[in-house]
Each structure stands twice: as C-alpha cells, then as structure tokens.
C-alpha cells in the first residue's frame, strides 16, 4: 500500500477470546515498582 503501512499483524480483539490464562508476569514485578506499564509485558503463551 502506498499511503498506509500497518505495523502489526495481530488484532487485540483476537487475544481477548483466547486470553486471560493469568500465567504471565505481574507487571509491577518486572522492573518498575513505581509506575504501571502493562503493554510492554510478554504473553506466556507462544501461540495465542
């Protein structure tokens, strides 16, 4: 496409249906301890 370049291949809505297993890391444990950032965490499942 000439005018638009979409960077991601995954739709967040698709992850909702299969998600929520809760096996992933609690966000605050990763490095921050003072500021919440969830979007940079990893999914525990290799294939959602």
């Amino acid at each position: 496409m000439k005018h638009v370049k979409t960077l991601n291949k995954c739709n967040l809505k698709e992850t909702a249906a299969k998600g929520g297993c809760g096996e992933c890391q609690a966000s605050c444990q990763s490095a921050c301890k003072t500021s919440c950032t969830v979007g940079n965490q990893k999914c525990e499942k290799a294939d959602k």
Partner: protein
Amino acid sequence: MRPFVLLCRRKVTEKTMIHKYQLNGYNIVLDVHSGGVSVVDDAAYRLLDFLDAPMAETCPQELLDRLSGEFSAEELRDAYAELYEMYRDGYLFSKDDYAQFADRMVSSPIKAMCLHISHDCQLRCKYCFASTGDFGEGRKLMDFETGKRAIDFLIEHSGSRRNLELDFFGGEPLMNWEVVKQVVAYAREQEKLHNKNFRFTITTNGILLTPDKYDFLNREMSNVVLSIDGRKEVNDRMRPNAGGRGTYDTIMPRYQDFVRARKASGNDQYYVRGTFTKYNLDFGEDVLHFNEMGFDQVSVEPVVTDPSHDYALREEDVPAIFAEYERLAKELIARRKEGRGFNFFHFMIDLDQGPCAIKRLRGCGCGNEYVAITPDGDIYPCHQFVGMEEWKMGSLYDGSFDTKMKDYFARANIYGKEDCADCWAKFYCSGGCNANNLQYAGDVLKPFKFSCELEKKRLECAIMIKAALADAE
C-alpha cells in the same frame, strides 16, 4: 475504602477511538480497540480528521471538495481506499466491544507476591517511598517462619495458576541473605508437591552484591533489578549511604561484574534501574551512561513523590521531560541501526506478542493477583501500600484476609476508573498505579494525571521507534 457499587460508575460503550500524532517525521495512527498501529502519509492523515465509523466504500465527494486545495482527487481517493481496507479488516475505527469480557475482570487467584524480606537498608535515598527502608514501621528483617508462611499462603491462594512469582524486596533484601536462600529452598520443595513453578526476582542496592552470591542469584532469580540512578553526580546526590557519602563508586563496579557473570551463566535477564528527579531532567544522559558502562537492559523512571519536595517533578517540568523522552527515542533508534541498541524498559512494546486484552483490562493486579507481605507477616495490596494501616488486607499469623478488599481491587480496572475508558492509552498502562492514584490523586480509581501524561508520551515514543525501525528494514 469505597463501596463496590461506586466501582461500576463507567459502562463499557461501543465507541470507536483512534489516536493520531506526528513524531520524528512519522504520521502515526493507533486504533485503540484493535491495537492496530499504522504509519500513514499526509493525505491519509488529513482524511482521518473527518472520518469515523461507519465508513463508506468510496471517498465521499464532500471530502474531495473540502481537501481539494491540499491534495489531488486521485491522492485522496487512493488514500481513502487504503484506509477503508484497514477499516474493513478491523484495524481502524474498531468498536469497544469489550463489555462481553466484563466477567473476566473479577477476582482472580493470587499469583504474585512482593516479599519484604528486609525492612532495613544501608542507604538513605532521598526519594525513598519506603521511608529509607523501614516503611515507617521500624527496622527489621523477616524471619524464615514468616517466609515459609508467605510461600504457603501464595500456594494456597493460587488456585490453578502454575507460574507463581515472588520478588524479594525491601529495604535491602541482601541484608537478609540467609533467609532469602531458605525461602527459595522451601519454595522449591513445595512447588514439586503442588505442581507450581516459582519464578523469583530480587531488587538490590548493590552494597552487598559480592561474587559469593552470584551462583545462587543466577541460578534462582529469573530477574535481578540493580538500583542506581545514573551518572555519578546524579546517583550520589539522591542515593547516599547512612553516613551521607555517595554510593556510585561502590556499586557501579559491582553491577558491571555481576552482569558479566550473569551473562556468562546464560541468564541475561536483569535491569539496571534508576529514578530521575527534577535534578536530572536530562535523564536521557543517565540512560545512555548505563549503556556506555556496558548495560543493555535499562529502566529509568520518574520519581513519584509529594510535590512539596524540592526534587519532585511538577507540571512545569513536563515539556522538558517530553523533549528528553523524544531525544532518547531518537538516540535509541540511531544505536539500534548501528547494531548497538539496548532495551529501555519504558520504550519496550510488542505490537504482536504483547499481553492479551484480558490482562490489559485487568490492570496491574495489585490487591487481587498480587500482594505484598511485611516482615511481620502483614498482607497489603502491594509494596506501595505497606505501612498504610487502613489498607492492610490481613495477616499470615492470624489467618485473616480481607476478600472484600480483594474484590475492590479486582474491579479497579480501566472500566472502573475515572477517565480511563475514554483514554487512548488504556490498553497499555491499564489504569495506572493504584497506589500512585491514591497518594497523589486522592483515590485508587482516579488516575494521577501527571503519571498519565508521562505514560502517554512514553507510549508515543515507543510506537514511533517501531515505525522508524520498520522503515529502516
């Protein structure tokens, strides 16, 4: 604590939401509810000023007329067609239909614990939210019995969750090293009996980080957070020892040595982690200093404190902080392109394999999936609530545990918080830090706007970095 009924003040709506912005020469569009991120040209960017769902298949004549002075009709038609394709594929103007998952935003098993193994510290960091280590409750170390009870509590409340996390925190955890080792050994025994998998992490100030501890730390700790603020003068100003002397010269060589050993052991998960204040609004220099000292996993975060302190960040500092984040983002891009990139925690974003939407809806998990335990065995929603008596959830010694408070935190998600449902960054910060909200905005459910602004800027930079790196490929 506020009654549950107030938590349902916001209803999930089916609104669409995009966030578009220009940064470092890129026109970026985030479709909030699909997570779709696109880089668009000027014609498409301009068209988006006038579009929303439902989109017509072809560009309306009135839009062609309206923008005829800026772009040719052909350009506009082509750009519109591509935007329509995005819309059709669900990456533009997707609806907020997450209401169907509302039942997933409820009480969960506890899977993570912050174990305050030490309420004592050798340092007197000026911004310490733990009142220089003791959380205002007196200097003390956790005994093994309390540590055992904490492991038992976590296993008992973890339901079907297999992966359990335990962060050794303080104060300074290495001041209670023998109990750290005992607790790990006990948890390793118990995980076999209960089919669990413990992941340990530890946060240290480095003073007692000596080679005799490396093997254990590298074998047992899935992550080690190494606290230091950056350049020598920056670190030593805010992180003196009890005698008032700076700590940089002691801890920097220890961290370098430890990280070398950790990588050699095959475990490269660590963070060098600092805090920036009003005194180093050029904190990007501290991030780059870490990189130049050989570290490639870096986190430097804004101080969160009472605005009355001279080192506190205030609204007036926001333009300088934004400019520094942008400068850092550009430098990071340049270093990646040169093959010497590094990770900056707050610019990390995975557009394809990040957390699922359910996790993003739930937020940080404080008080619900995550609790903190004090040396006395008291239970709090997280480490930042420790010492606030009204937020004590229970005790490992009398068996009490406030499940109503747990339910309260379970519902402190993005659809329960004031303004979050209408914010474009909601699926990335997931409602912010509950403790910060309480301390500085006065309410767990009221976002602390200053933190929100910084979070949004970091997110814009993180996405822009993705765009720039994709552009370079």
